[in-house]
């Protein structure tokens, strides 16, 4: 057994895990994060996709030293901290729980705002009927969030390539591509219009969104991506 500390959707969890335990099983079976699902056993389907961000090294070390004591960070500070770095999409069946030690994980359950308002990608999936059975949806949405963090203004081809690692059997992907395109517009609009509202988790942009402002991909800060508010 190895002691690990992972922050999931803004809550810190310290647990002893077997070396062989996969992150997805840790999330589901131990932490009750059953919004993240398992669709295959060969890392092909992407249903288990979550966002994973490394904690600042000094912080992780400090936490380890403090023997699991709760971090005295306020909600606002935590939100700001989360916004300061984007998590990358990982297939959580392809990560050992011990490898996730010291990281911050965002699952589908932590994507909406604290007041229950949807993330723009969630909203776009709903608006565009980009899901049917919904089993691939959590992973698909998180893969899309990651894609839009990397590339805020992707072409349809880039969207298709960006979600290539996530299989959907119901939709034929067409509405998913459209949803991601809409979410990209909404997120860029949010950044230009009122980034604060996005941070609050309110729905920016639709349908009264200002027209998308062409922008240098590099110039779009990750703040444009709303983060869970604890």
């Amino acid at each position, binding site marked *: 057994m190895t002691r690990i500390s992972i922050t999931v959707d803004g809550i810190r969890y310290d647990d002893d895990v*077997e070396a*062989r335990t996969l992150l997805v099983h840790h999330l589901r*079976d131990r932490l009750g*994060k*059953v*919004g*993240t*699902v*398992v*669709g*295959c*056993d*060969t890392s*092909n*389907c992407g*249903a288990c996709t979550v966002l994973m961000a490394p904690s600042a090294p000094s912080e992780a070390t400090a936490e380890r030293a403090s023997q699991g004591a709760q971090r005295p960070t306020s909600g606002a500070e935590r939100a700001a901290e989360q916004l300061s770095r984007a998590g990358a999409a990982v297939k959580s069946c392809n990560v050992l729980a011990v490898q996730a030690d010291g990281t911050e994980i965002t*699952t*589908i*359950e932590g*994507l*909406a705002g604290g007041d229950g308002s*949807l993330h723009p990608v*969630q909203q776009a*999936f*709903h*608006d565009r*009927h980009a*899901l*049917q*059975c*919904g*089993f*691939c*949806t*959590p992973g698909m*949405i998180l893969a899309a969030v990651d894609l839009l963090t990397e590339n805020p203004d992707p072409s*349809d081809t880039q*969207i*298709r*390539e960006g*979600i*290539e*690692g*996530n*299989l*959907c*059997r*119901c*939709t*034929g*992907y*067409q*509405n*998913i*591509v459209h949803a991601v395109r809409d979410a990209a517009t909404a997120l860029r609009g949010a950044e230009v219009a009122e980034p604060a509202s996005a941070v609050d988790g309110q729905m920016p942009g639709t349908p009264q969104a200002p027209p998308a402002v062409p922008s240098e991909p590099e110039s779009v800060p990750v703040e444009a991506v709303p983060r869970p508010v604890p």
Partner: protein
Amino acid sequence: MTTVQERPAGEVGAARKRKEDARLITGRTMWTENITLPGMLHLAILRSPMAHARVTRVDTSAALREPGVVTAFSGRDVADTQGSLPCAWPVTEDMVHPDHPPLAVDEVRHAGEAVAVVVARDRASAVDALASIEVDYEPLPVVLDMEEALAEDARLVHADKGTNKAYTWVFDSGEAGTGQAVDAAFAGAEVVIKRRYIQQRLIPAFMEPRSVVVDPTGDQHTIWSATQIPHILRVMVALVTGMPEHKVRVVAPDVGGGFGGKLQVTAEELIAFMAAQRVGKPVKYTETRSDSLLSAHHGRDQIQDLELAARRDGTVLGLRVNLLANMGAYLGIVTPGVPLLGAFMYNAIYKFPAYRFVCTGVYTNTTTTDAYRGAGRPEATYAIERLMDELAAELDLDPVEIRRRNWIGHDEFPFDTVAGLTYDSGNYEAATDKALALFGYEELRAEQASRRASGDPVQLGIGVSTYTEMCGLAPSRVLGALRYAAGGWETASVRVLPTGKVEVVTGTSPHGQGHETAWSQIVADRLGVPFEDIEVLHGDTRTSHKGLDTYGSRSLAVGGIALVNACTKVIDKARPVAAHLLECDVSDLEFADGAFRVRGAPSDAAGKTIADCAFAVFAAHDMPDGVEPSVDADATYDPGNFSFPHGTHLCATEVDTETGRVTIRSYVAVDDVGRVINPLIVEGQVHGGVAQGIAQALFEEAVYDSEGNLLTGTFIDYTVPSAVDLPDIVSDRNETPAPDHPLGAKGVGEAGTIASTPAVINAIVDALRPYGVRDIRMPATPERVWQALQGGARS
């Protein structure tokens, strides 16, 4: 015949966003695998690594000593009590029907068959302990090829049956009196097109792996299962296990896709049931994807020998179909009947006068086949649509023209077909005209000609597919005539709560189709209740005690009528209540725009709503004598006929003649699925259906090696298409209302899958016809296309 009732603009027809989404996009979904009960144990299944072997010894004693293991057992331990998995469709009186034990006892007959199980405190302990189970297998010869299986000296899948033939089922229009004798039609033919097409084996590959939780509490057993058929499962568990039906509750919570693949009573469900009974604790089993691909039922896998007779003017005279259908090693719930659903569809939209269909079901040492999206109809449609293209090529006619010369005109409905069905309605001309315009057919033909002339290494091909299908399974009397064990009715209840909110209970069991949304739209219009005030309950036999579940594009086509009828009954029950409240005579009342008003009163006059009536019967202080204090109602509806959606799909492919690579350049689908309740949902069904049909044409095939090992046992090898593999399609609709449906709806769940496979293959063959290619074996991978170009696969 019911008349289609014109309704004012309302919820029906609106692109309502789905109610279901709220939980699905936030990760608050109740998948079976998410269920954890107090004291719950976990089940792991040891599966046969061999396709055919005698099981001479199973020793579970070492597994029992592993940490956390509660019990372990094999088929032999439960041989006398486990019963046999059901097949509800013995298609002929003399069908060979072997026992299908949930756990193999003395013999395994396909790779992946369940042999022994472990129940332990957690999943990892259970899986670990499987390694301690000792099994001795004595290999037996395998038979995989259907034609070899039917040879006289064939190795037998079931030695005690003496044959690998399950049944032979024949339909002959001459004998049935639905048309002419087929031999006479062929005698008069000027052209005969003879082909063999292979419907490769597919795997439904729903995204949510199957999962089951069984909770024995006292003498009550609750089964949560990722199934399409909770109601059928409950009946079958009662019949197979002897457990009284009222002691069994089945719940299909949120279910992650099915496509026919979860239309099954599975070995795993029965095994979990046995295990839970044995330990007296809740037990959960969730399959891995590898388990799923190996052991959940497969689809298609047919060899089609076809002969089409025609005159040189293109008039089709008759069709002979000789089908071999692979059953796999055992029969699933509707395995033998799947090809028969195709039997009624080979004549498609055409009015040729003679037809003979012979189907032989064959056992092999492979995973059982059963329903997969379309179930028999995609195979039939593929065959006839490929043949029509071949006939067009033979006669040097445009493939659209050959269809025009043979299809049923819009003024010829209702039309009695050579296969014995009565098509209710349709307008093939209109759908085709719209599709041709959207596609830019003439322009693409011109481009094709110029690319042919210039010898472009990338050739353009155009594929036409005009289809119809039978939706709304099914009139019970038809099912009875086909020897199916159950009926085809559907049921609905509408409960109006005291505050005017409405609960709708449906016997259908959605797993992605959006019934909660669509049913709410229907009820909102009927009762004049806000969409938001309606809750749709499904999939739990405690709430919905009766139903025949969701498959065969039946939910709206049959369940929708039950729902409309239940709403009508609610209005009828509320009428005397409203008359009482308005102090008028019942006969003076009319119900419109959500309220009862005295006939002739202006529409803005105060009336009594269904909610008013529901509150009045809740109090029931002064109900007149004889008025039941309830406005709730149930209805069960048995359809008089199938419904027949149709459409025209056109596909343009670019085929690289140097590499064999196929790219779909454009795809147009014009479907006529009758009146649309929710265009958003219909469009989604078309998109997904087309994607699965394209997948059969280009990507997917379940492959066994010569020993019967499944080579495509993971998503690495079984290539479900990803977003980069599929095109955007253009989809549009015509609406010819179904005359037998009060909403005019027909059904849409399978249409895209049925239509798209031949559209794609016709396009590839069309591109390569100048090179002498007349067929491509599916899936049309670059290698297969290239081989065909080398002459390897010319027929």
